[in-house]
């Protein structure tokens, strides 16, 4: 509407003030009719509008802006503040919330009336907006006066809620909104005037709870309470706290409830980590993982407790076996290794399940096993026991491929824990040789291959090369034998001969007895094979191991002929009796050229053991060099074929294996030292030793003393020298 008359400032203000009073009245009444009379609205709007567009000197924009400021100030200071200050506790909050809502409405209406200012004048002068002015006034007049009390009340309410009471969440939310808004675009007021205090209070609250609960509750109970507390705090944030508070709040709760009491909690006597593992409390353990996982460094103590527990269990197993061995009973490799495998499977389930496949727990399991898997039981190292276990496993018939694979997987895992890998390889090789040579009926080639392949995958090809060679040899020998048989027109010496050729490099070393005087028939056999072999191969030397052969001999006894399954040595002795009935010990030993120890064993097996093939004079239980032997023509048995077993020579196999491995280790250390020095040229002692240990760790744990000795030996052999100036440093001698 176009007006002719100029509005005077004072006049305009009167109109304005009337309008403001009307607003205040409406707000105070709080009826649902919070609407201004449209006529009044328009009048106010137009008045202000006109006052702004009037020409100079009647352009009152600046004065109006100031007036606006006065209005809101006055409202905040004279209306809002007194009302709030009168109240206490929850009533304080309610009043504050109410007045805050009113203020917002008030300011909103005003912004309509002063709209022209907002759109034109304020941007022109770059002044703070009307809303900013209003908020600032509220902050300065109201907020600053009441915030401390308000904060205290809110925190008291929160504590009440923590104790289980129901509180008015909407109210708190609204009040906290005041704090947030008072930050004028930043979150600072909320943080400084409220959050800080809340966190302090939370800390002491949960510290108290922690010290009470840890005394009163078992570990599972405590954890459940902790989990519950965390859940509630998070919920609290969603309902009325500012979202930025969540991570700080959670951190404090975790710190007070979980971190500070971790040791006490995990080590609780009857309900701590150890007890939970013992009693298979899967849920509680999963909870423990859930609670400690998000905390930095939180899982370490749990993994540690796990490791200690597993090591304890393993050690107990070992101790049991050691005690049994000390009492004289035989060390049953199958039983012990089987138990260790079971233990491993049991705790692996926990690692995968409760502890969610976390690397810490894999590592803890591994370390625990390394501790007890390297202990000796009854004089046998773990390497030997494991090799014995494999031997028994592979000799058992009737196992499916899957069953074997599963067990072999476990074996290979245990092998990883044993530090003396090379020792295992040696024992395994010895046992493998015996299986292949003497038990070849029982040998299941697929199973043997499965085992070797899996070991190879973990330890590398070089580790298993000899074993593979041995298995291949047996295969080649079979085929070669076919060729040999095919080439014969007649049986040499009238005997069915089967020969297995072993590649020296792969097999354990055996003593040979090439001086043995074979009977004529056997000599023919040997010659026949030798010539055939010579045609098929180039310049290879054969060493005959008669000590390892088997012979089937028909004994023509008076009652009935019986087939005797013998060792070659036994057969050779008996064949002497084809020509005479009686022989003295001396005659036998001279004719055959066997060693005394070997002959004694053979004669014992033939004359003093289960089957009396020979009669002995005198009929004592041992062999003396003056004994006389006679063919026992009256010997008989119900069976048509009997195996006359001969006990193996009493060499201390274990000792030999250990010696061989020690020797190999010495070479390995030498080679390693030379290799390192060749590439580094100059190296201090400490570093040489540690690098050596590291490089060899795959195969075995080298003894530092042995390394030192090898270094000195290499110095004497002019591979290395000490540096002239610093005797702790070595130089490579090219």
């Amino acid at each position, binding site marked *: 509407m176009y007006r002719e008359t100029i509005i005077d400032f004072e006049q305009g203000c009167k109109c304005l003030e009337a309008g403001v009073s009307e607003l205040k009245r409406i707000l105070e009444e709080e009826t649902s009719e919070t609407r201004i009379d449209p006529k009044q609205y328009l009048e106010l709007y137009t008045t202000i509008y006109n006052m702004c567009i009037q020409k100079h000197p009647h352009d009152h924009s600046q004065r109006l802006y100031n007036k606006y400021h006065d209005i809101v100030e006055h409202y905040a200071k004279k209306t809002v503040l007194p009302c709030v200050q009168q109240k206490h506790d929850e009533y304080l909050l309610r009043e504050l919330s109410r007045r805050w809502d009113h203020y917002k409405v008030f300011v909103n209406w005003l912004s309509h009336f002063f709209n022209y200012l907002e759109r034109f004048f304020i941007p022109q002068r770059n002044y703070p907006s009307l809303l900013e002015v209003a908020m600032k006034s509220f902050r300065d007049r109201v907020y600053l006066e009441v915030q401390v009390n308000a904060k205290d009340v809110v925190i008291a309410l929160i504590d009440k809620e923590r104790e289980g009471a129901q509180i008015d969440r909407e109210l708190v939310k609204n009040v906290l909104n005041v704090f947030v808004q008072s930050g004028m675009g930043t979150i600072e007021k909320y943080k400084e005037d409220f959050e800080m205090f809340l966190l302090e209070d939370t800390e002491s609250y949960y510290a108290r709870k922690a010290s009470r609960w840890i005394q009163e509750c078992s570990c599972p109970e405590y954890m459940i309470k902790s989990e519950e507390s965390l859940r509630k705090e998070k919920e609290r944030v969603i309902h009325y706290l500012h979202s930025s508070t969540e991570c700080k709040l959670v951190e404090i709760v975790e710190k007070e409830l979980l971190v500070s009491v971790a040791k006490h909690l995990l080590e609780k006597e009857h309900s701590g980590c150890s007890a939970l593992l013992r009693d298979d409390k899967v849920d509680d353990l999963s909870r423990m993982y859930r609670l400690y996982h998000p905390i930095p460094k939180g899982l370490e103590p749990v993994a540690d407790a796990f490791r200690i527990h597993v090591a304890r269990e393993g050690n107990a197993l070992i101790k049991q076996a050691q005690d049994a061995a000390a009492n004289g009973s035989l060390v049953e490799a199958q039983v012990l290794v089987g138990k260790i495998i079971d233990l491993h499977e049991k705790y692996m389930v926990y690692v995968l399940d409760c502890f969610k496949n976390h690397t810490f727990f894999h590592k803890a399991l591994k370390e625990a096993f390394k501790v007890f898997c390297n202990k000796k039981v009854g004089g046998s190292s773990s390497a030997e026991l494991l090799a014995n276990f494999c031997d028994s496993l592979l000799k058992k018939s009737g196992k499916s491929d899957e069953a074997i694979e599963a067990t072999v997987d476990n074996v290979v895992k245990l092998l990883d824990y044993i530090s003396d890998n090379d020792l295992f390889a040696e024992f395994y090789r010895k046992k493998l040789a015996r299986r292949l040579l003497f038990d070849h009926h029982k040998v299941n080639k697929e199973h043997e291959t499965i085992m070797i392949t899996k070991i190879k995958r973990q330890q590398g090809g070089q580790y298993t090369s000899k074993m593979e060679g041995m298995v291949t040899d047996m295969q080649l020998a079979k085929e070669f034998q076919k060729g040999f048989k095919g080439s014969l027109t007649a049986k040499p010496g009238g005997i069915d001969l089967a020969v297995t050729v072993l590649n020296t490099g792969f097999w354990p070393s055996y003593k040979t007895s090439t001086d043995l005087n074979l009977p004529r028939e056997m000599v023919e056999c040997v010659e026949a094979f030798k010539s055939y072999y010579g045609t098929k191969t180039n310049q290879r030397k054969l060493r005959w191991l008669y000590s390892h052969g088997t012979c089937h001999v028909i004994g023509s006894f008076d009652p009935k002929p019986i087939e005797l399954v013998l060792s070659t040595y036994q057969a050779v002795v008996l064949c002497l009796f084809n020509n005479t009935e009686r022989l003295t010990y001396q005659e036998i030993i001279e004719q055959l050229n066997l060693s005394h120890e070997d002959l004694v064993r053979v004669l014992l097996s033939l004359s003093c053991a289960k089957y009396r093939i020979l009669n002995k004079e005198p009929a004592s239980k041992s062999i003396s060099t003056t004994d006389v032997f006679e063919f026992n023509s009256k010997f008989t048995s119900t069976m048509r074929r009997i195996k006359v077993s001969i006990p193996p020579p009493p060499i201390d196999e274990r000792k030999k294996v250990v010696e061989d491995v020690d020797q190999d280790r010495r070479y390995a250390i030498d080679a390693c030292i030379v290799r390192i020095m060749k590439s580094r040229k100059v190296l201090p*002692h*400490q570093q040489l030793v540690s690098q050596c240990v590291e490089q060899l760790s795959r195969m075995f744990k080298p003894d530092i003393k042995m390394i030192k*000795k090898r270094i000195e030996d290499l110095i*004497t052999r002019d591979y290395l020298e*000490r540096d002239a100036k610093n005797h*702790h440093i070595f130089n490579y001698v090219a």
Partner: protein
Amino acid sequence: MRRLEELFNRYKDPYSDMILAEGVSVLCSDLQVEPQDIVTLVLSWHMNAATACEFSKEEFFGGLQALGIDSIGKLQEKLAFMRSELKDEQKFYEIYNFAFGWAKEKGQKSFALDTAIGMWQLLFAEREWPLVNHWCDFLQDRHNKTISKDTWAQLLEFARTVNPLLSNYDAEGAWPYLIDEFVEYLYDKSVVDK
């Protein structure tokens, strides 16, 4: 030069161009010293002699010329000086290490234990080392094998740098195995407290 020739001929073996054990005894009695006197070692060192109780013509001539000697009298006068050389740190070090090659059997790579112990007693009489007797006891007690060149050389290092209470002994150091064992022995026998 001619005087050296005469001197040499006095001691040399009738069948070879060397002064051998016989000649050495005569030399020693001329000098009025015992053959086991350590000064013979020093003399040999000056001559760079290859083996104990033997001097080749070159060694004899070379050594005496270096010392500026051409008569027995002058040699006798020089004896005191040669003894004093053992007190010099650097020279003692050289003489000690020289002794290994010199005193061992020709063709062997290491020292027989008895020879080594004898040499050590002799050498450490000149330079005090409080543990020398324990060392020799230890060797006879526990070692009973030959002594390598490295062990010989390192023993001097040990005597020089490690104090008799072993407080500055580094067990992780590059000491030869035998010396580590010796330290263990000292602890075992409570000669030194750990």
